[in-house]
């Protein structure tokens, strides 16, 4: 097993407050030595392996590709594998919580089920045409393709869902990620499901509930701006209300 970098002995230990429990629970404080280039994921892993094996948390790739390690660090939703302790520590204190707006499974791990249900409810899946006469020609520089490209890097990590105030206020609100996906599909000229899709995002829990707080845009680790995707859905919805095909 690879050795940890030597602890920087001169610096005091980190005081790491970690959420334990479910929706009800408490913070447990651990002391973790500071190490060079330490990420939050390193800290959580060290706690779980060396101090308390009962701590539950998620990670997979460790390199900023999968989004599994998302949690709230000092009040902000982030990927812990891509967050250096040095950039977020409040003095020597770190506060780790599970993602907001998700049901807590245990400690730092949340249930993503409801999130993906909203993805489905927003019709965030490709619908193929019944018959195909020929290949679709999709120029990469076309406006639709560029609009879709701006949003397709989403890997469903849930950071935006955690950051969104409207998701916190309104349990029915579909949320930035599902709506962003709906927008990318709306712009996919191969897709045949746009009537149902616009219907789905126009409901009482749909795009018009977005008030452009921009938390999603601020925190998205992929640099996507769901606010602008949702603005696109608003325009599409209005066009349709006027009888025009968006």
């Amino acid at each position, binding site marked *: 097993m690879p050795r940890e970098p030597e602890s920087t002995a001169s610096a005091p230990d980190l005081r790491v407050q970690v959420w334990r429990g479910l929706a009800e629970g408490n913070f447990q404080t651990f002391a973790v030595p500071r190490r060079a280039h330490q990420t939050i994921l390193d800290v959580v892993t060290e706690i779980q392996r060396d101090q308390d094996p009962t701590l539950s948390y998620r990670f997979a790739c460790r390199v900023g590709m999968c989004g599994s390690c998302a949690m709230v660090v000092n009040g902000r939703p982030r990927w812990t594998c891509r967050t250096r302790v040095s950039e977020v520590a409040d003095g020597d204190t770190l506060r780790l919580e599970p993602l907001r707006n998700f049901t807590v499974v245990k400690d730092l791990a949340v249930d993503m089920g409801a999130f993906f249900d909203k993805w489905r409810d927003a019709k965030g899946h490709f619908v193929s045409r019944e018959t195909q006469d020929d290949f679709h020609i999709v120029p990469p520089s076309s406006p639709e393709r560029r609009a879709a490209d701006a949003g397709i890097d989403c890997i469903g990590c849930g950071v935006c869902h955690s950051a969104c105030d409207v998701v916190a*206020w*309104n349990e029915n609100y579909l949320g930035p990620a599902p709506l962003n996906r709906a927008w990318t599909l709306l712009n996919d000229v191969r897709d045949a499901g746009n009537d149902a899709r616009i219907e789905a995002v*126009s409901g*009482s829990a749909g795009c*018009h*509930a977005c008030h452009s707080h921009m938390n999603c845009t601020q925190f998205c680790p992929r640099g996507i701006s769901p606010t602008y995707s949702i603005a696109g859905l*608003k325009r599409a*919805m*209005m066009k*349709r*209300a*006027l009888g025009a095909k968006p």
Partner: protein
Amino acid sequence: MTAILFLAQRASAMVLALFVSVHLATIIYAVRGGLTAGEVLARTRENHLFFAFYLLFVLAVSVHAPIGLRNVIHEWTPWQGRSLDVVLALFSLMLLVMGVRAAVAVYLPPEVMFG
């Protein structure tokens, strides 16, 4: 909120962006050196342009304000559904009637007054 209401809200907002700008400029100009009824009415009495402006202003506001309140009430209170929509429609009507009355009040010369 239905798509039509959302559309009406945004459309009236665009109209109001222009009208409110004009109105703010007018207010700032008008309050200089104190505000008197004589000054206000001298500007607006029998002024077709102001009259048309205020009528359209009132119309846009009668659309924009109730829809905005509907969003706020939906999100911040438990009230929703038919009863809320009816009350807000009445509020819209009230704004329209009172607003038109106000526009007429400052447009008509004294001899033609009513009510």
